[in-house]
């Protein structure tokens, strides 16, 4: 009888041990009903050299390409689709009128080009046509480090929160925070601090037509959808790698896991996100030979997967014309970085 009792206790102990394993990502993996391979068409251009092309915008016959690691100018303007070089702007440097950083570029509805210098903590706008500096907006120090921006309306910007206590900030034309919204949707017991915000650094895009804001995380595999009119989180779309993985050291997040998304766009019909999937393990071993992602994921406006495109090149960013179904991207690994795909 004693033997049976001991065996029973041992069995219970083993059962408890097996059930106490580290929680795995049990979320359903994103499954796309359609997967399509695409081949790029190169748009050759001369007179433009970019070390690390990272953002592209097109409006009518005007194409702007942004270099994240400019040696001379951060931004270049070309005629589209002729690809004839027009001019370069945002000179790199530390003198007055020069810039040390460019996080993103956007064109507002008045056709003004805007850009964000995170190091100077300021937004700049340029006059349509001439691309001369129109205005500079010094951003509040409370933003700590603004790493992206989009237009909420004519007088308000959306900037991701860097404190970890919220997800986004709404900032007025004086650079002051007027509202802080939502929180980082981590399911782990992380403290809401700067390392959390650093690890969950997300690229944003907002469409005022449908009031949808998408945030795609640079680490991990998460896309968040918010409705800013109703002020609510609609959905969190997890991929198989789950939320960002990181270690905290001396108050900083040290990335781990995978490189996730590097660009996202909310259209009128669909949401598009560019995914990399490189693991830091492979990067440390030197197994990753190219920067950028080859996977373009398309969701409907409710966050349901629609299609996954497998690109023949590694790109860092894109812009989509939903009417022509043309997807224009930048291949950071090529001397001719501007490429286009026709989405089926």
């Amino acid at each position: 009888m004693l033997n049976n009792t001991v065996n029973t206790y041992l069995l219970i102990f083993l059962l408890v041990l097996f059930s106490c394993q580290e929680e795995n990502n049990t979320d359903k993996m994103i499954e796309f009903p359609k997967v399509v391979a695409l081949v790029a068409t190169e748009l050759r251009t001369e007179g433009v050299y970019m070390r690390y092309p990272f953002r592209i915008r097109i409006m009518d016959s005007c194409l702007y390409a942004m270099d994240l690691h400019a040696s001379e100018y951060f931004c270049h303007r070309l005629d589209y689709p002729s690809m004839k070089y027009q001019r370069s702007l945002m000179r790199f440097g530390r003198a007055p009128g020069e810039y040390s950083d460019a996080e993103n570029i956007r064109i507002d509805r008045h056709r003004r080009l805007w850009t964000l210098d995170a190091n100077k903590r300021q937004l700049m706008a340029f006059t349509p046509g001439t691309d001369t500096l129109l205005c500079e907006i010094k951003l509040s120090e409370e933003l700590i480090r603004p790493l992206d921006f989009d237009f909420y309306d004519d007088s308000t910007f959306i900037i991701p929160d860097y404190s970890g206590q919220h997800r986004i900030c709404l900032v007025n034309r004086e650079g002051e925070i007027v509202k802080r919204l939502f929180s980082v949707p981590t399911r782990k017991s992380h403290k809401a601090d700067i390392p959390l915000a650093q690890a969950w650094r997300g690229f944003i895009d907002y469409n005022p037509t449908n009031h949808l804001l998408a945030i795609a995380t640079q680490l991990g595999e998460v896309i968040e959808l918010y409705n800013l009119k109703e002020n609510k989180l609609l959905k969190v779309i997890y991929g198989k790698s789950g939320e960002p993985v990181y270690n905290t050291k001396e108050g900083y997040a040290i990335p781990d896991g995978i490189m996730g998304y590097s660009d996202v766009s909310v259209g009128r019909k669909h949401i598009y996100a560019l995914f990399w999937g490189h693991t830091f393990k492979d990067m440390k071993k030197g197994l990753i030979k190219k920067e950028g992602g080859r996977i373009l994921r398309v969701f409907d406006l409710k966050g349901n997967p629609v299609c996954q495109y497998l690109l023949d090149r590694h790109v860092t960013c894109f812009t989509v014309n939903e009417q022509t179904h043309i997807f224009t991207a930048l291949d950071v690994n090529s001397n001719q970085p501007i490429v286009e795909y026709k989405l089926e």
Partner: protein
Amino acid sequence: MKKIFLTCISLVILTTTFSTDLNSAGRPTGGVIDNIEALSNGENPVHLCLYIGSLDCPTSSIKVMYIVE
């Protein structure tokens, strides 16, 4: 009885071994990191920001390919 007990202990040890996260995140492996010329990130001993990329190095004003402890 002794056999059963030893078998259970062996199972526990095996389970623990394969359940442990063997990820050596943040630690250089294979000698690759040792041979890489690091980007200047000051004298900060906390971490190393390596190569050019798109990760925001928290202690410098540059974007890098990866950050290691």
